[in-house]
């Protein structure tokens, strides 16, 4: 509180600063602080100054992704005016769903400093099993088919994790083997499905239930989508304000109320624009996939930032030896992270198949695994482990999806898509490396 550099007392949130000011003497800053401003600053002014210092020292958080995303969107909109049309945004949501899910899957293992190259084909295997169970003459219930698909992908990834842990082989090699094995398994599955997967394709056209198809193609009603938006924003507001109050009540520093309100307002604004646009003529409303992703992001973020497992994941990624000495079971964390990667991969597979209306043995598992790594890294998840957030992976996955969609819209085809993704990925990794250099030089 009293640590701002001698300027006039901040008038913006004076009362808040007083509320949080009960803690004992905070000596003046001695080192350059590269931390979350939420937990360092009690006032808006201090918050922004900490935030700027942090950006300058390389911990820029989500800022570069958002700036990059805006730049890419502007470019596509200028090149092709239909880019921001309601119908294209609706398409974009469907494409973004599975790409974001893939980026989230990869995040779990990247945080440990590992990588899962097999997650693409794993996703396809899971989707194939789900679709197979729904396409047979006497189909299984939808919930069972989905659970079975996810269970298989989780188990496959967990086995890869076990091999990595037991044999102490780098994950790169184990999952490269998994990549080949799973692409083989995928081909074999279609040979075994007989008439169901005739021609190497299982389509959802014969499904008795339309639930799987509706995840991407179906939408919430106009009223329902507004209600959901209000509920989500209200919950977020209540939770963050309550958490801040609790911290202040214990004499700890909490972000100023103005910052919290600003964040909630931005979140509400983005939500309102999205819901409004998706309900314009040309689009059929907010697709279910948006809600699915929102729920998953919420759950996985809590898992990573608020549970022991999440804390240990960051610890192992940051310094495995330190985590081991603190009593953390490295094997358990690694295997669990791989299983979660497989689980999210399975979700990605189902979302992909739902968007396409079918799943086939022609799945581009090699390409999509690169999307998953690209998405996570663009979103600020470090390839070296220990750094990055689930929300970042969502943003990064969205950037990849925007490129995927925009390049397609411009008619550049696969060539343009690859080159664009490569350019953005390289930019993101460069930024990551520069930030790393910046943060070490401030030590």
């Amino acid at each position: 509180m009293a640590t701002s550099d001698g300027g006039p007392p901040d008038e913006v949130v004076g009362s808040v600063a007083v509320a949080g000011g009960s803690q004992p003497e905070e000596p003046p800053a001695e080192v350059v602080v590269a931390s979350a401003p939420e937990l360092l600053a009690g006032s808006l002014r201090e918050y922004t100054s900490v935030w700027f210092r942090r950006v300058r020292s390389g911990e820029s958080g989500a800022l570069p992704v958002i700036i990059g995303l805006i730049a890419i969107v502007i470019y596509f909109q200028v090149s092709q005016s239909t880019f921001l049309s309601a119908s294209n945004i609706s398409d974009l949501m469907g494409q973004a769903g599975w790409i974001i899910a893939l980026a989230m899957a990869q995040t779990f293992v990247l945080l440990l400093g590992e990588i899962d190259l097999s997650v693409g084909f794993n996703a396809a295997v899971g989707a194939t099993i789900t679709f197979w169970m729904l396409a047979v003459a006497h189909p299984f219930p939808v919930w069972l088919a989905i659970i079975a698909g996810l269970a298989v992908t989780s188990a496959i990834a967990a086995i890869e994790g076990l091999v990595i842990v037991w044999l102490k082989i780098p994950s790169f090699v184990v999952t490269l083997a998994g990549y080949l094995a799973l692409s083989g398994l995928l081909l074999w599955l279609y040979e075994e499905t007989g008439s169901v997967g005739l021609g190497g394709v299982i389509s959802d056209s014969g499904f008795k239930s339309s639930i799987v198809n509706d995840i991407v193609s179906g939408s919430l009603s106009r009223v329902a989508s507004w209600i959901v938006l209000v509920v989500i924003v209200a919950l977020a507001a209540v939770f963050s304000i309550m958490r801040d109050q609790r911290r202040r009540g214990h004499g700890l520093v909490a972000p100023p109320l103005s910052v919290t309100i600003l964040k909630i307002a931005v979140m509400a604004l983005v939500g309102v624009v999205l819901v409004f646009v998706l309900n314009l003529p040309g689009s059929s409303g907010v697709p279910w996939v948006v809600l699915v992703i929102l729920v998953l992001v919420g759950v996985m973020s809590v898992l990573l930032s608020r549970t022991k497992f999440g804390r240990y994941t960051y610890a192992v990624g940051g310094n495995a030896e330190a985590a081991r000495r603190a009593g953390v079971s490295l094997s358990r964390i690694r295997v669990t992270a791989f299983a979660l990667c497989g689980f999210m991969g399975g979700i990605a597979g189902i979302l992909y198949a739902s968007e396409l209306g079918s799943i086939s043995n022609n799945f581009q598992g090699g390409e999509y695994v690169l999307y998953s790594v690209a998405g996570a890294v663009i979103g600020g998840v470090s390839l070296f482990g220990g750094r990055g957030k689930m929300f970042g992976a969502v943003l990064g996955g969205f950037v990849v999806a925007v490129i995927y969609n925009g390049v397609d819209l411009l008619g550049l085809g696969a060539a343009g898509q690859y080159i664009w993704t490569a350019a953005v990925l390289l930019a993101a990794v460069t930024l990551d490396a520069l930030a790393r250099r910046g943060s070490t030089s401030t030590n």
Partner: protein
Amino acid sequence: MVTSNAGPGAIAPGPAGTGDVPLLQLRGLSKSFGPVQALTDVNLDVPAGQVTALVGDNGAGKSTLIKCIAGIWQPTSGQLLWNGRPVAIHSPREANQLGIAAVYQDLALCDNLDIVQNMMLGREKVKFGLLDEVSMELTAKQTLQDLAVTTVRSIRQPVGSLSGGQRQSVAVAKAVMSDAQLVIMDEPTAALGVSQTEQVLNLITRLASRGHAVLVISHNLVDVFQAADRLAVLYLGRMVGVGPASDYDRQSVVDLMTTGASTRVGSSNGGAEPAVPGGFSSGSEGFNYGNV
């Protein structure tokens, strides 16, 4: 003290230890790796409330000795007495449970985690399945305040952004938080600047004044004489000098470290040393049995 045959007071623990069993006693400790004899018949008392400095040239066996205490290695022969009772420490975990915490040179901190997260690593507090950040932050803050570690701006900053001295402080605070009675530190001031060294030495003396036993390995004799209450000099695996720091000067310690003997040490030490271990050990054991 009960030890009638302890002879010259050279070995007797300092003021705080008198009339009490030293927290940790090593009796005739030896450790060999195959044909290599790393430690031979080492006797050492580490009393609570004092800083014991373990010095010696490279290869003298300092690290081997602390690893035997911290449970990383088991001594080949000899005894460890904890509060007067013989104990066998088979793993670092067992050492921790006894109340022994070791801070190694690599500090074992996660740079990407903040101070609170590092200090609470492995003993997180959980409420309804979720981490209780507020309660953990309060605990960590209290510990840091107790140790008067005040140079960090926020305990929510990542450890990677801290200076060397601050990192050392965090590592020590983390060790102390597990209710450690004995804190072992391996070269805590190596690679630190002047003011940071000062900071860490202050922390070490503060630990002792709070009643912890502190065992510090150091190469830096300036630091040793500034912070240590007691000195223990190892030479080629043998303890060649133990006693209050005031009995030694820098030259005598250098002599002991490099040649295993010193003519400069006061008569009390130089002469008495060889005779002491056996006698003191038996006396002390007699005392222990009486006590148990």
